[in-house]
């Protein structure tokens, strides 16, 4: 057994670090570190910087613009990005749609859409969930009816993250209402500027509006926007979900969040002692730290298995559950650290360039909103209950 990286891998890590040191704008890492909101321009800016280096599409094949990295290199890259407080790469075009297009799309679709994802021409969003189709995604009802060389789409999608910025949406639609649930679904690319599309923001409990409802009324979509074959969309959707779950453990971002928590806990005192000397607070921190160290190794075991050609099975579900539990535990403890100063809610202070009078210790204002926002982690991308179903089906098999 050898837990160390090869000298080549260590050299690669150094290369990533020096790139981040040089190219990651402090303004952006500062926002991430302090829990401030990122604008569309911030995300576009960071994508462009990565793209200029050829590192934006880290898991694409080289022929389409990927860097040709190994699984281990990708893991190192993601880890270093998170630890440097780099903004997360917006996944919808790069990590969700692109792998589907590369595997199942037509040559024309690849030639047209992939470069536009890389250079930021098209911002994509995901049209999967519906009000009646959440964990039971295959029960989706949005319909696409063939009419000459078009599909006519009617229905509603929901939880569409950052749909307010999107130029395009990839949608699961029902093309055969008579077939079994999974067998009548197709994968369709829809221009958000089409007539009959309406986007309505959903305000979340932290006051944020990052998700949307998208309504389709007689939206005409050219048939060439169908990906793969009609009624085979469920196969592509499942393929996409396995990609959605790569790097799901989020070891790097949890490690970065834990470091911030440790620093805060060392500065804030309660009853005359820093929180790091408070036995109960210190115990809560230690449990998370141990859990995180364990998960880092579990994650590397999965990465090593994947590097050896193993197909991810229950492991990605395990990592999703544990990774989100750890991240949520960190945000809960960060909130707790600020005591009464987690109570004030000054949303303007969470935006860039706020000049108002600060209230409480630095970053106190972001603690509770972040905690509430991160409740989504155990719900989206297949809720943790669905993940446990997947695991138990694999191991119990009944």
């Amino acid at each position, binding site marked *: 057994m050898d837990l160390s990286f090869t000298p080549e891998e260590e050299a690669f890590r150094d290369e990533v670090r020096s790139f981040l040191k040089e190219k990651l704008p402090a303004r952006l890492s500062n926002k991430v570190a302090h829990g401030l909101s990122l604008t569309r321009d911030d995300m576009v800016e960071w994508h462009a910087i990565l793209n200029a280096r050829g590192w934006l599409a880290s898991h694409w094949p080289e022929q389409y613009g990927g860097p040709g990295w190994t699984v281990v290199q990708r893991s190192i890259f993601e880890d270093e990005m998170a630890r440097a407080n780099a903004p997360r790469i917006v996944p919808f075009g790069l990590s969700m749609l692109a792998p589907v297009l590369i595997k199942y799309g037509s040559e024309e679709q690849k030639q047209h859409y992939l470069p536009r994802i890389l250079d930021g021409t098209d911002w994509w969003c995901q049209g999967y969930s519906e009000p009646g189709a959440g964990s039971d995604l295959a029960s989706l009802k949005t319909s696409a009816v063939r009419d000459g060389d078009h599909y006519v789409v009617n229905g509603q999608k929901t939880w569409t993250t950052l749909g307010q910025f999107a130029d395009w949406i990839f949608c699961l639609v029902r093309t055969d209402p008579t077939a079994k649930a999974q067998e009548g679904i197709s994968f369709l690319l829809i221009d958000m500027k089409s007539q009959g599309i309406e986007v309505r923001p959903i305000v979340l409990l932290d006051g944020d509006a990052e998700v949307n409802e998208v309504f389709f009324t007689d939206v005409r979509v050219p048939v060439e926007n169908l990906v793969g074959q009609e009624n085979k969309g469920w196969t592509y959707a499942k393929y996409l979900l396995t990609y959605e779950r790569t790097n799901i453990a989020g070891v790097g971002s949890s490690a970065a969040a834990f470091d911030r928590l440790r620093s805060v806990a060392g500065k804030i005192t309660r*009853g005359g002692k820093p929180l790091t000397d408070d036995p109960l607070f210190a115990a809560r921190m230690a449990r998370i730290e141990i859990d995180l160290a364990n998960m880092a190794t579990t994650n590397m075991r999965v990465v090593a298995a994947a590097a050896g050609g193993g197909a991810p099975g229950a492991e990605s579900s395990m990592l999703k559950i544990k990774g989100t539990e750890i991240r949520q535990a960190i945000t809960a403890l960060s909130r707790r650290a600020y005591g*009464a100063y987690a109570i004030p*809610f000054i949303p303007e202070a969470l935006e860039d360039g706020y000049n108002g009078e600060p209230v409480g210790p630095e970053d106190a204002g972001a603690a509770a*909103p972040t905690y509430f926002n991160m409740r989504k982690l155990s719900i989206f991308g297949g809720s943790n*209950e669905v993940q446990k179903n997947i695991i138990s089906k694999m191991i119990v098999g009944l």
Partner: protein
Amino acid sequence: MDFQHSEDRQMLADTLRRYLADAAPVDARNRVAYGETGYSPEVWAGLGELGIAGALFGEDVGGFGGSGFDIMVVFEELGRALAVEPFLGTLMVGRALAIADAVPEGIVAGTTIAAFAHAEPQDRAPGEALATRAVRDGDGWSLTGAKAVVAQAEAADVLLVSAQTDAGMALFLVSKGAEGLAIHGYNTVDGGRAGEVRLNGVRVAAPVGGDAEAAIAAAEAAGLLALSAEALGAMDVAKTATIEYLQTRKQFGVPIGKFQALQHRIATVLLEVEQARSAVINAADAFGKPGVERALAAAKYTVGATGQLVAEEAIQLHGGIGMTWELPLSHYAKRLTMIDHQLGDQDEHLQRYIALGRAA
């Protein structure tokens, strides 16, 4: 043994519940809670007419209640409705003043808004002096310092401010608009308003009489019971809403409450909420008796831990919809979470419980 509230108290609870359901349903509550005032002057006035404040005080100071169970029923109902009207300030300031002085009539009548301004921005070691200072100034006193996250500081007609004098801690009543009083107000995460209070040489004629430390302890004891009961009311509503969701939301062709994994989780929520109810009953029963501090620490610890469980499970069992502003549940989850940030969190009260046990 009888675990029913007395008929009078049950009537009070029913009246309060009906009034709040009618006058302050959650959407109306949210409009004011996240708005400029953080409470509804109309609802406050309406509750004043119902005599709710009077239930929080004994006959000796002009009220008609004041026992632990009176405080419990009032705040449990306020919690059920997520009420943001400033009763916590009424209770804490009134109970502090009741130790020595007469309580101003307006506080007992529910017409005067009072804010309890004791906690400070900086931490304090046990026994350490307050940073807010009161010094003799001619025939009166001058107050200088800062107070942290004071609930409804801007709306308050009076603030009860703690300060250090050469002879120890003292309490001063500061009126709204007093010269040298500056308040930086803001909304709170769970709805309502609070503020940072600054005292820049605020002139006050005299401190309130009596033992200030005893008065502060009385205020905090009442406040802990009130917050515990409020949490109980809120968690009961969150639990019921979640049960209804499990019964009605269908996935895979069945109500999701058919899935045993979810059944067991809601069962855990239910039993922990009943445990929390017992903790609040224990504290209400001990209120005003020797040993109350430990029962209060136990109650606040319990509702802190259970409140987080209920809030997180209610959101998770609802799925995405549980995270939306539109659903009342999300506001209950926020209130339950933030109660653990008021007057000490679950860890602080667990340690207090241990320390009080050692001392006994």
